[in-house]
């Protein structure tokens, strides 16, 4: 049953197992009204599988998904009331025109969807190509038509699977602008992506997934706070510089800097600005020439890679820790 206060998306313990492959290993997800929620992970992390389960296209092996409190497996198409979107690339009948495709989908929707076709085509700037067969459309045009098809449903919740994939830079910009605009008009958005910059630009909350499980869930600001920073130092004399740095109060984690292969003697360390200031004086007083002393902020992308690449530890704040994973 629909519950007026139910969150747009609520998934509990979603698992999808294909023979001996676990595509999704116990995902909990709550998207609140007004969120632009990024579901971020590398290819093969099970993002699309989760979206398919949310839309009722595939059955979870266990767990359940609800959209505005309704389970698509129980309530069928009714559970998708107010919900629109696409998984993977949007697909249409190649032998029908773009407009005919939309007319058919509007007929399957009812609720005045047919009256929104012109506006939807205008929004995605496809009005001039609407009479052409979809078979001749480029990937980007199909992607735009996919968004138009979603808009026909006048959605309160929009599910988009890698919406900017395959678009040229202008297309990506338009797509992001559209998502931002829909969000500002009150649409809740769940978008999957493998691009941290995209999520960083558009989303207020993010779940980072790796091999079917969530390794971070929270708002972007907290994620940024975990990013941390360090300093990089290059001088005229590497060996002596290291001794000076190690002796300096307030400077920790001194190490060889692996990020500057062109300067093999470069060092990295952590410390407050005040301590680094004192260090710079100490270095000069020791007769060392300063070639570089720079603060290096870890980007969200670094955090993303740390969380999603091999050898990464699952952070303690992750919900995936506390939930049993059926792998």
């Amino acid at each position, binding site marked *: 049953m629909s519950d007026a206060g139910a969150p747009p998306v609520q998934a509990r313990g979603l698992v999808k197992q294909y023979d001996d492959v676990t595509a999704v290993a116990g995902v909990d997800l709550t998207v609140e009204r007004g969120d632009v929620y990024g579901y971020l992970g590398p290819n093969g992390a099970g993002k699309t599988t989760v979206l398919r389960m949310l839309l009722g296209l595939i059955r979870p092996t266990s767990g359940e998904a609800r959209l505005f409190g309704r389970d698509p497996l129980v309530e069928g198409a009714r559970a998708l009331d107010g919900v629109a979107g696409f998984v993977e690339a949007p697909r249409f*009948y190649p032998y029908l025109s773009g407009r005919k495709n939309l007319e058919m989908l509007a007929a399957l929707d009812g609720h005045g969807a047919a009256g929104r076709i012109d506006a939807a085509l205008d929004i995605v700037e496809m009005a001039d190509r609407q009479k052409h067969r979809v078979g001749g459309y480029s990937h980007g045009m199909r992607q735009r038509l996919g968004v138009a098809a979603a808009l026909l449903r006048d959605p309160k919740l929009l599910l988009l699977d890698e919406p900017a994939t395959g678009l040229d830079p202008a297309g990506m910009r338009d797509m992001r602008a559209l998502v931002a605009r829909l969000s500002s008009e009150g649409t809740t958005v769940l978008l999957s992506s493998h691009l941290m910059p995209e999520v960083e630009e558009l989303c207020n909350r993010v779940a980072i997934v790796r091999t079917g499980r969530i390794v971070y869930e929270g708002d972007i600001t907290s994620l940024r706070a975990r990013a941390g920073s360090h300093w990089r130092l290059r001088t005229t004399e590497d060996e002596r510089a290291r001794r000076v740095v190690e002796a300096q109060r307030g400077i920790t984690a001194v190490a060889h800097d692996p990020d500057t292969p062109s300067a093999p003697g470069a060092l990295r360390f952590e410390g407050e600005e005040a301590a680094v200031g004192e260090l710079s004086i100490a270095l000069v007083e020791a007769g060392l020439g300063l070639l570089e002393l720079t603060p290096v902020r870890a980007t969200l992308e670094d955090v993303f890679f740390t969380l999603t690449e091999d050898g990464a530890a699952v952070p303690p704040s992750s919900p995936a820790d506390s939930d049993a994973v059926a792998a």
Partner: protein
Amino acid sequence: MPALRIVYAWELRKLLAQKRTYLGLGAAVLVPLVFAGALLVQNGQPNDVAFGRYVRQSGLAIPPVLLIFGSIWLFPLIASLVAGDIVAAEDHNGTLKTILTRSTDRSRIFVAKVLAAATYAFVALTAMGVVALLAGIAVSGLHPLVTLSGTTVSSAKGIELIAASLLVYMMPLLGIVAIALLLSVLTHNSAAAVVGALMISLILQLVTILPGLGSLQPYLLTTQFNAWQGFLRTPVDYAPVVRAAWVCALYAVPALAVAFSSFMRRDVTGG
């Protein structure tokens, strides 16, 4: 949720926009024209087929000859050309996910597809019947028809009996439609479903000539393609017609039930 009628209408519109649809309809129209054309330029007639020796006496004999000829593979092929494709094409185009994420339940889409595939088979058969009748009348004239019992019926009565025969012929054709649709759902592959349905139809016909299996003949789907001949006897023999009704249902209903259950439960992963 939109009415079934609307979903069905769009299934028909999709068929109308595809070349494959016209391939089957074209064959249904072309075969009687070629047959009539051959009668015009050649002497003689197909004497070893029922009604064959009357094709020059009455145009009404031509539709029955083509019904007999068409039951071997032509109509099973025409029917499965669309029924075998109607779900698999959605897999091929990746459009199942597109239509299953709208406000229409899977069950309604399935029923609309069954109705559209059946409609197509009906239209193709009717087209063949009408063209065969008109071409037959053009070549051999509108004259009374000699029935299988050797009696003669008026041409008006003959047309009526041919119309009834076409309706009875629809029953095994719907059985083929159901089997092709089942294969379309299960294989996700249009070619496999079309060829598979045709193979099943041919194998069923083969069974009847294998030694020791002749007793199965009355219960084979393909045998029911002869049931209409009951109408062209005097008096009309309803027994084969009645048997065709339940034998065809015995094939079609389980096939559709399995197809429905699979369609309702399947994971839509393609596209």
